[in-house]
């Protein structure tokens, strides 16, 4: 008899658990749909050739009829420099990400591992710079770039973004959670500070490095205003600026804009897919 009631209890509990699970997944699905709709709309718009792109009375309006790739081709026809813009963005991102990660990791190391006078002051000063509005930096940075004779160079686009306070703190945080015993063991083996940083700590900071790589890549990839301020030659403009050519003062073809936005998203998505596993670990690590 008792056994019987136990099994019914068990099935009850299991049922409730299932019900919760279903509800949970339903909720996730709804959030997923909400997150995806703008993307799907963009994709569908970029594949449409005629008709109203803003009309969305039923879901079937999302299916392009007829389906065409002509918008993607049209981008290059309208803006022949598109390939150049892509290349410029890759150049900016490559150097930008490399130096930002390198500098963050090198600057984060002493802040996490060494004791020296003024360490607190340095940290507070760094955080204080975050409080300055972008506009305040803009003019000073512009004057500095001109004084360095770097106006209209890729270096001008890169320099102000190379040191990232967020990056330094992220790397410092990930060094902090690694046990100090590892450094000590390496030190006993005769390793220099450089070797400890390079061969002991950095290999353990994969997730944070991945997070920083993605964040800085996205930041450099999306940079818009600064390149326009320090560049003069169109042939050096990054992709974001090039995309703005698709909308002029009086008209814009939303199909082309959509196609351009999707193309611009591809590198970021690919980078994220490759780093996804580390990225999640890295994000979890930030709070530690």
């Amino acid at each position, binding site marked *: 008899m008792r056994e019987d009631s136990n099994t019914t209890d068990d099935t009850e509990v299991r049922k409730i658990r299932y019900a919760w699970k279903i509800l949970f997944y339903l909720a996730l699905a709804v959030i997923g749909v909400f997150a995806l709709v703008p993307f799907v709309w963009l994709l569908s718009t970029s594949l449409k050739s*005629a*008709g*109203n*792109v*803003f*009309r*969305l009375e039923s879901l079937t309006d999302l299916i392009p009829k007829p389906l065409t790739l002509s918008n993607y081709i049209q981008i290059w026809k*309208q*803006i022949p420099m598109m390939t150049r813009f892509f290349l410029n963005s890759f*150049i900016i991102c490559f*150097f930008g990400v*490399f130096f930002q990660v390198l500098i963050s990791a090198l600057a984060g190391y002493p802040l996490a591992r060494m004791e020296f006078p003024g360490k607190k002051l340095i940290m507070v000063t760094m955080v204080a710079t975050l409080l300055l509005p972008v*506009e305040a930096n*803009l*003019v000073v940075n*512009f*004057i500095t770039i*001109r004084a360095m*004779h*770097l*106006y*209209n*160079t*890729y*270096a*001008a686009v890169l320099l102000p973004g190379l040191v990232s306070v967020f990056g330094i703190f992220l790397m410092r945080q990930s060094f902090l959670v690694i046990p100090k015993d590892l450094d000590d063991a390496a030190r006993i083996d005769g390793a220099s500070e450089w*070797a400890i940083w*390079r061969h002991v700590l950095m290999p353990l900071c994969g997730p944070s490095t991945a997070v920083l790589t993605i964040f800085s890549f996205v930041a450099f990839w999306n940079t*818009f*205003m600064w390149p*326009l*301020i320090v560049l*003069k030659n*169109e042939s*050096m403009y990054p992709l974001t600026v090039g995309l*703005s*050519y698709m*909308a*002029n*003062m*009086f*008209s*814009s*073809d*939303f*199909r082309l804009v959509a196609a351009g936005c999707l193309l611009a998203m591809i590198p970021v998505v690919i980078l994220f897919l490759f780093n996804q596993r580390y990225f999640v670990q890295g994000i979890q690590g930030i709070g530690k």
Partner: protein
Amino acid sequence: MFAGRVKNFCLLILASLLIIIAGGCASRANTDKIRLEFWTISLKPTYNDYMNGLIGRYEKLHPDVELEWIDLPINVVMQKLMASIAGGASPDVVNLNTDYALILAQNNALVSMDKMVPADIRAGYFENLWEASRWKGESYAVPWYVSTQLIMYNKKIFKEAGLPEAAPATWDEVVAVSKAVRKKTGFYGFMPAVKLINDWRMNGVPVLDESKKHALFDRPEAVAYLEWYVNLRKQDLIPAETLVLGYQGALDRYQAGSLGMLITGPQFLLRIAKNAPDVYAATAVGPYPPGRAGIVPVATMNFVVPRASKNRGKAVDLALFLTGDENQLEFCKLVPLLPSRKKAASDEFFEKGKGSPLEDDAIRISVKQLSYGRDLSLGVKDSNNLVRILNQAVESAFYGRQEPAAVLREAAKQWDEILGGN
């Protein structure tokens, strides 16, 4: 071994960075010509042919001058201009809207066009447009292309709502039409871009006193215009997101075929034709109902010359060339816009059109409005700050958090504090 490779890699990167820097510094061709740098807003690459034509003609007329054309998106132009002036690399001629021009004029950053341009040439521009950039008695901009607003309406929606095929002629009629559209079709009739300052000035309600140090809009006749919007919202005749989405929201709704009327400039027909051909086919246009003061708002694009320009005289000359009668007329044939010069505006093109019925209608109506149009930009220091305060007040009244009279009283007090310091 591995460390060595890393070192090599770092060296390689540094070397390539240096090459990039050096590449950018490649020396410019040395010429004895005067270089004039001029900026426009979002015309590349669609209007390259037109602009390059102008540049070629100007350089031919002035063999001693070399022009450099830079085109920027509107959201960057002010930042770049301020950085460039501060950094000692000012452009010579810059395309700005009246608001931006006034902000710079108030900061003593622009050359006075009243001083630089001879009276007989000045007289060729519409006085109301020339005066738009007036600050302390002097104008600081040469008006370029302008546009007056129209009412575009969706004939299909009007038919469904049982309305005659005609644009409403007064603002009371706009409300009546909106009621019918809302009731019969479920769509909204219109979605205004709420700009109280324009409403007041269009209707002869004073915003500031003569000294421009006191706000006057805490009076009942001014409050009535805010109440108008609040009541429209209460009756659900305009969407809840009117304030948040503004003009862009109205444009999107109209293009989706779910807004009865769109209040906009004729140049937006180009956008609707591209993105919503079915709505374009159902669109007709009518004049913008004037306010009690008998005027309608005009949006003006100007050319200004920064005081930091090294060749002010030549720069003003270039601004006058770019806005010359023939050059403006040629541009108006490409885009449904209006010229700022009287002779260009009297050309038969604006009456005859170019064979695209809807655009021709729009231009015909729009050009007639030009003579009683005013650029309603405020023209006081800190105007963007004042507008922000006013918008916050409008918001609290619109969402029913506070009474219209109370919010405007509070906003007027804040305006007085700011204006008193001028």
